[in-house]
């Protein structure tokens, strides 16, 4: 398929996800606790998309490669070594705003 409104169902049923470096795709996959290989496409991408993928890789949450090294990565991947991705904490933001407005 080309576009779906939501990949949530497909993600839920997957054992491994291979994705481009779009933030939405990466984060949604990580939040569902699925192992992720991010494939970088230099020609298509905005430089800044790489930042998040790179950081996630540095922190040990995802595997990372480009189109030419994908096969190699699939052959040598060590999925259990990937760290679980902790969820973001919007409550910290709410707390911060409440302090700003004296609501605490």
């Amino acid at each position, binding site marked *: 398929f080309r576009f779906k409104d939501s990949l949530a169902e497909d993600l839920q049923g997957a054992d491994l996800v291979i994705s481009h470096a*779009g*933030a*939405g795709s990466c*984060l949604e996959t990580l939040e569902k606790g699925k192992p992720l290989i991010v494939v970088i496409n230099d020609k298509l991408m905005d430089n*800044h*998309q790489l*930042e*998040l993928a*790179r*950081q996630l890789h540095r922190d040990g949450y995802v595997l990372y490669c480009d189109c030419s090294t994908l096969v190699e990565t699939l052959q040598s991947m060590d999925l259990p070594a990937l760290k679980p991705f*902790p969820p*973001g*904490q*919007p*409550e*910290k*933001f*709410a707390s*911060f*705003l*409440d302090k*700003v*407005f004296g*609501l605490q």
Partner: protein
Amino acid sequence: TGGHTTEILRLLSCLSESYSPRHYVLADSDKMSEAKIRSFEQKRAETFSKSQFSLDRIPRSREVRQSWISSVLTTLYSILYSLPLTYKRKPDLILCNGPGTCVPVCLSAFLLGLLRIKRTIIVYVESICRVETLSLSGKILYYFSDYFIVQWPDLKKKYPKSVYLGRIV
């Protein structure tokens, strides 16, 4: 737009009903965000029955990779367009996270502040995608916002006036 909307709705998820009514401002070309917002607000209304919100649209201030000069002109046009909206709503707080759409809204509120018509607190949260560099909206609003929040430590080092709370979406 898509990613920004998802992030901002997450930011809103833990806010109390003191932050009400909520006025959402979208780019006229944005087709997907309205549905997400309505869905969020509908769920919210299940818990907080008096919950109120509205949706407004403004012309998109800049297309991706639009040239510098034409961006300045289209942004100026968007600021003028936003002024009556900001004047009408006179928000106490503007919360934004980076789409080009937010720049004219914030600048129009900043202007109304300078003119002593309404003092709005501008809170900018840079997207989680921004680890090492700021978006163009961020670079501009760093100077106009009251609180500038970043989600990665590298940015806090580069932009010392920013606030770092860790990952909040």
